[in-house]
């Protein structure tokens, strides 16, 4: 009898353990198909960066279209995607390292640069400027984000050394062109472009790297110089990008974890959550106009369309739309609205996989009204798919990128933490 309390306690513990195990097994069973689906989508998408790479120099095609040049931004997404592939065991450790190193060496030694900035498009074979493309500030930033992430992933290696070297040689103040906002680009024939990153957009990553630079930083005040227009669509209020394209709420977030960063009470992660929900609501509300739009088919973003590449978007903003849906718009929203994103991706896959899904995952876009299906994949669209799914699943990119000293430097200059509010 004197052992009764112990027995009761043991029974209670056993019952608790059984309940926990039952719950966990139930969860595991419930989430397993979703995990398998995300595994497949990420795995297939990552293979774009391996198969569409020139094995001689590591340059990655802008698009899977034959004859496509390489793009600096695609290389940035590729660098990150290859590390993700390695972390998930889909690419052998040594192979992944060598691929990353090859890309970085080519950008260090062969790709022409203007004060550290790279051209938007590069010839796949020679690594020289393709066509009359511009020296692009945002594409340089997207490349460097991938390079710095890879440097952090392979900390202490040659990859980190080259990534730091590429970052530290960029003369960011030059791209200000005497103003307090960054210019979009420069051409040898014309000088600086007429366009500036003067309003909320995907350029937050550009400003972050420019302000955080240990060698050639721009003043921290530049961060507050770009406009932050606010508008609402239905219940969703957001600082918006004029194009209304969903990628503008995603690209910076692919590397930067804004969840704990506050700027005068504004949290850009929450802002993207609202913008994503508004984009989805806009598609639901216009489902009568366009066949493809609906609760599981949204994510209006710049992508290929029946008439070529267009800056599609929703509200808030003056989004142009014609019924074209890019699956990457949904995949890139995974951290902001996981349930809606996963449901959307699964529905697109189950309903349209015959035309919409191929060797590199989801093709770029489709338009049911015009019975048009993209035949190609775009590197940056495949890239945002891989990175944002990974951030949703493990937070790997965020964790590594946020520990880079330059990023910490930018945060210390421009943000307050939630605790300090």
């Amino acid at each position: 009898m004197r052992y009764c309390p112990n027995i009761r306690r043991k029974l209670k513990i056993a019952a608790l353990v059984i309940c926990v195990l039952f719950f966990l097994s139930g969860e595991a069973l419930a989430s397993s198909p979703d995990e398998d689906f995300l595994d497949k989508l990420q795995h297939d998408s990552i293979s774009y960066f391996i198969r569409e790479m020139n094995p001689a120099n590591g340059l990655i095609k802008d698009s899977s279209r034959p004859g496509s040049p390489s793009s600096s931004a695609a290389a940035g997404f590729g660098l990150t995607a290859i590390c993700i592939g390695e972390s998930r065991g889909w690419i052998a450790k040594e192979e992944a390292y060598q691929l990353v190193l090859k890309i970085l060496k080519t950008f260090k030694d062969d790709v022409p640069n203007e004060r550290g900035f790279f051209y938007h498009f590069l010839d796949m074979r020679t690594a020289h400027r393709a066509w009359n493309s511009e020296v692009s500030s945002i594409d340089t930033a997207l490349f460097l984000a991938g390079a710095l992430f890879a440097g952090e992933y392979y900390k202490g290696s040659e990859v980190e050394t080259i990534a730091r070297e590429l970052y530290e040689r960029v003369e960011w103040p030059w791209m200000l062109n005497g103003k307090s906002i960054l210019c979009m680009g420069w051409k040898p024939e014309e000088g600086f472009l007429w366009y500036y990153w003067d309003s909320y957009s995907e350029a937050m990553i550009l400003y972050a790297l420019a302000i955080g630079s240990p060698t050639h930083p721009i003043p921290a005040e530049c961060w507050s110089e770009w406009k932050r227009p606010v508008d609402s669509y239905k219940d969703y209020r957001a600082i918006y990008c004029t194009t209304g394209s969903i990628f503008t709420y995603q690209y910076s977030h692919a590397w930067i974890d804004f969840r704990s960063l506050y700027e005068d009470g504004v949290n850009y992660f929450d802002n993207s959550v609202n913008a994503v929900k508004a984009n989805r609501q806009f598609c639901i509300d216009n489902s009568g106009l366009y066949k493809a739009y609906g609760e599981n088919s949204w994510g209006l973003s710049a992508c290929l369309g029946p008439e070529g590449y267009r800056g599609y978007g929703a509200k808030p903003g003056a989004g142009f739309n014609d019924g074209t849906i890019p699956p990457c718009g949904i995949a890139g929203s995974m951290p902001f609205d996981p349930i809606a994103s996963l449901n959307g991706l699964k529905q697109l896959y189950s309903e349209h996989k015959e035309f919409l899904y191929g060797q590199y995952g989801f093709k770029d876009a489709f338009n049911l009204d015009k019975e048009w299906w993209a035949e190609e994949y775009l590197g940056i669209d495949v890239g945002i798919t891989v990175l944002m799914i990974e951030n949703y699943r493990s937070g790997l990119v965020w964790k590594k990128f946020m520990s880079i000293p330059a990023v910490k430097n930018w945060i210390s200059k421009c943000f307050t933490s939630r605790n300090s509010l």
Partner: protein
Amino acid sequence: MTHEMHRRTHYLINRSFQLKYTFAIALTILAVMLISGIGIYVGMWSSIIENFSKFKVSENLETAKRIADYEGARYGKGDFRLEKIFREAELLSAKEQDTLHEALKSVNKALLPKMMVFVVIVFIGGIFVSHRIAGPMYHFEKSARAIRDGNLSVNFNVRKTDEMKETALSLEEMVESLRRDIDKIKKINHDAQIDEILSKYKT
């Protein structure tokens, strides 16, 4: 030896030697021409053909259009007339491709018969050139047989345009020396047996 004796009425004096010699030259030249032709074709024409192929031109136009589209989407300066312009450029490039294709066809058409004519000219030239060697050789052979038969009055004259002039001169000197020595021996000899041998030589 009269002037008429030097005139050659046919050029295949030593048929097997001259044909062998001429074929060797013609085949060597043909081989050089083919190798050069293939080299030029692979190195230059194939590059031109590839870069001006319908596929490549279409790819390039698509890239140009795509870059313009990207700029339009990024800078908000979309110009939908571009679509029309690029389609017209594609049509124009199709016309240019036809022109290039025609140019290549006419070059090939013109080159092939010319190559054949060139080989025939080389062959005929080979016969002409070779007979300048074969002629003296034939003449030397005939003279050598005559000397064997005791005729020391032969000569080794060759024509101005013939080869082997130095050889002819040496042979001429050799026969002259032999003729002088035989004459001398004839004058001092009184042996009937040697007389009989010497009688064979007509100096």
